[in-house]
């Protein structure tokens, strides 16, 4: 590429004092935070507020809403949406869209099911094949977008339609394929006893909280050593304590036996513990957050989403970044499809169709990821996905009868619109300060 080679230019040495070396106290930090919110960097705040309001609302209106049984079901049902939304965050960060993520997830799941059932392969092979298909789909979409220059809306609309067709053909006459592989099905705990042991749940929490604390304090001490302004210790401690407390409530809650009515079938069985999907989602959340927030690649994704011309001039390979986000999105769609397969213990010919994709896009946007590109985080997918699931469960309990699903869709639509409104307004707030 370069005739001169890749030697990094030497940095200019400044002899003067570093810029503003000072420690903020908690009050200053709070004021700074509020200022950033008002400057249009609201991030996940509206989503979190909405979540709290909705949970309180449904908990008042519907007595069983916060039962361990209901909460566990929300986690399991929300998992495929959340995982798909994590991938969509990458695509949305570039201001692109992937309408095919839903049917791609269905197609990959169907491939896995066909391999498992009709070809009797090991589950590892089936999962690998589904993931690989996801990567190939993403690379193709990305190539068509970056190198051929077709708008992603059109490419993925075409893919959305054709994947649906391929799925119908692959599933064939019976309309569904049942999957009985134990490992795959245990992921979403389709049978009542496939959960993490209670101790494993607590161990997982300990690892997460400890890991968070170590990363936090190492960053703080490094910044202090360099004489840079830092978050006060008190705030860091509050964050860690909040994480530990919320996590402990969840783990404790999931430790309660969820079988309340005993039939002769379940009389000597218990249903307790954290679903296996939770550690998987935590690993994804951690890995993808690291990728976006702490690596050069992640920084370049934001840069291309903010101003691709500036990114190009800075030497970033914009086309490769563009292709890569579609690969990540379709790969996570494949994972999402496998999780959906697990919860249904099979696939059908409409796998991944319907609302699947729209709910996932809604989740990312409700969580605070901008449709205009350049703004968003992986955690947004989790927050938004939980909001979507809370609405779905809350409404279906609230409105019985055949109108339930209808109202659920209406409310989800309204919430999405409100979230997109926040997005547009906060973007304007940011721009108006120029």
């Amino acid at each position, binding site marked *: 590429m370069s005739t*001169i080679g890749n030697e990094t230019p030497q*940095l*200019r040495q400044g002899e003067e004092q570093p810029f*503003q070396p000072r420690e903020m106290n908690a009050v200053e930090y709070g004021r700074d935070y509020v200022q950033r919110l008002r400057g249009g960097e609201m991030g996940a705040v509206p989503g979190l507020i909405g979540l709290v309001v909705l949970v309180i609302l449904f908990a008042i209106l519907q007595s069983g809403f916060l039962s361990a049984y209901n909460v566990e079901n929300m986690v399991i049902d929300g998992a495929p949406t959340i995982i798909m939304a994590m991938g969509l965050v990458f695509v949305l960060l570039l201001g692109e869209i992937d309408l095919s993520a839903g049917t791609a997830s269905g197609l990959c799941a169907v491939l896995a099911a066909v391999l498992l059932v009709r070809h009797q392969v090991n589950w590892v092979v089936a999962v690998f094949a589904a993931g690989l298909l996801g990567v190939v789909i993403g690379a193709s979409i990305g190539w068509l977008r970056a190198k051929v220059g077709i708008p992603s809306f059109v490419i993925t609309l075409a893919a959305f339609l054709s994947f649906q067709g391929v799925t119908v053909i692959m599933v064939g006459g019976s309309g569904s394929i049942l999957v009985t592989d134990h490992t795959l099905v245990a992921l979403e705990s389709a049978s009542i006893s496939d959960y993490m042991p209670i101790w494993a749940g607590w161990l997982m929490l300990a690892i997460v909280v400890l890991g968070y604390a170590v990363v936090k304090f190492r960053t703080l001490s490094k910044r202090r050593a360099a004489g840079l*302004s830092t978050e006060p210790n008190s705030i860091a401690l509050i964050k860690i304590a909040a994480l530990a407390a919320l996590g402990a409530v969840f783990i404790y809650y999931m430790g309660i036996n969820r079988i309340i009515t005993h039939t002769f079938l379940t009389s000597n069985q218990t249903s307790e513990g954290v679903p296996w999907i939770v550690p998987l989602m935590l690993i994804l959340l951690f890995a993808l957050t690291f990728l976006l927030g*702490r690596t050069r690649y992640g920084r370049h994704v934001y840069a291309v989403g*903010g101003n691709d011309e*500036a*990114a190009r001039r800075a030497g970033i390979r914009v086309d490769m970044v563009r292709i890569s986000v579609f690969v990540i999105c379709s790969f996570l769609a494949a994972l999402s499809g496998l999780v959906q397969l697990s919860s249904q213990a099979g696939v059908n010919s409409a796998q991944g169709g319907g609302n699947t994709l729209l709910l996932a896009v809604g989740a990312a946007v409700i969580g605070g990821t901008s449709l205009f590109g350049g703004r968003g985080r992986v955690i947004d997918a989790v927050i938004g996905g939980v909001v979507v699931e809370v609405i779905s469960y809350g409404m279906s309990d609230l409105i019985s009868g055949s109108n339930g699903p209808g109202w659920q869709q209406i409310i989800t639509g309204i919430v999405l619109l409100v979230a997109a409104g926040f997005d547009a307004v906060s973007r304007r707030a*940011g721009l108006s300060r120029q």
Partner: protein
Amino acid sequence: MSVDAGPRGASEPILRLRGIQKSFGPVHVLKGVDFEARSGEVTALVGDNGAGKSTLVKCIGGTYAIDEGEYIFDGRPAHVQSPRAASALGIEIVYQDLALCDNLDIVENMFLGREEVVGAARTLDEAKMELMAGQTLASLSVRTVKSVRQKVSSLSGGQRQTVAIAKAVLWNSKLVILDEPTAALGVAQTAQVLDLVRRLADQGLAVVLISHNMNDVLQVSDSIAALYLGQMAAQVRRSEVTHTQIVELITAGRSGDLGLTSSVASAVEGNGAQA
């Protein structure tokens, strides 16, 4: 065609261009341009709209490859085929349309594409980058930004220009080219940026300043190069010309005994955009 020797004539210019030719298909934009820039000096590059200033700058910066001509940097012939090659030589360009990402903060923008990493996992070294960005701004006596972690979208036009310039000098650059840095700024902010431009030169960098504003040019430059329809009308010392002479060089390609000879000027005019 007169290229000045100047008071610092003893020192070799850091950049010397001879007979640069550049065409876009049938459009002959640069027709044998000579140009020099010296360390510690502000060299103004002036010319009417479409004279070829931006094109010349993009040739220097490696965005466009030159068709013909001599490109000598730091005394050695250089083949600059890409922006990367230019920045490896120590040439940085602040473009007319700023190349900043609104959604990133000042530090992130300054290090874009050249982020510092640390450890086996090659994670971003935020502390180091923040420190160096702060030092660079301080060394340029920039006091107008509140925090280096501010998003660029929240900055004023002058502050953005400052960030773009600081980004260019963060690296050990030898030649910084500014394409109309004051075009969109008010009076106070223009003064700030011009001040900064002067300081860069005083620190020993070679600065090339493109501007349509004669007051700016006269106020800040040491040497003035006037392009006229793709030819270098003249490159003269600031101290040796008047406002009127520069305007004549820009609009007619000649002024008294300066500039293109009348036959050349009219020939250029007559040929217009012909190949």
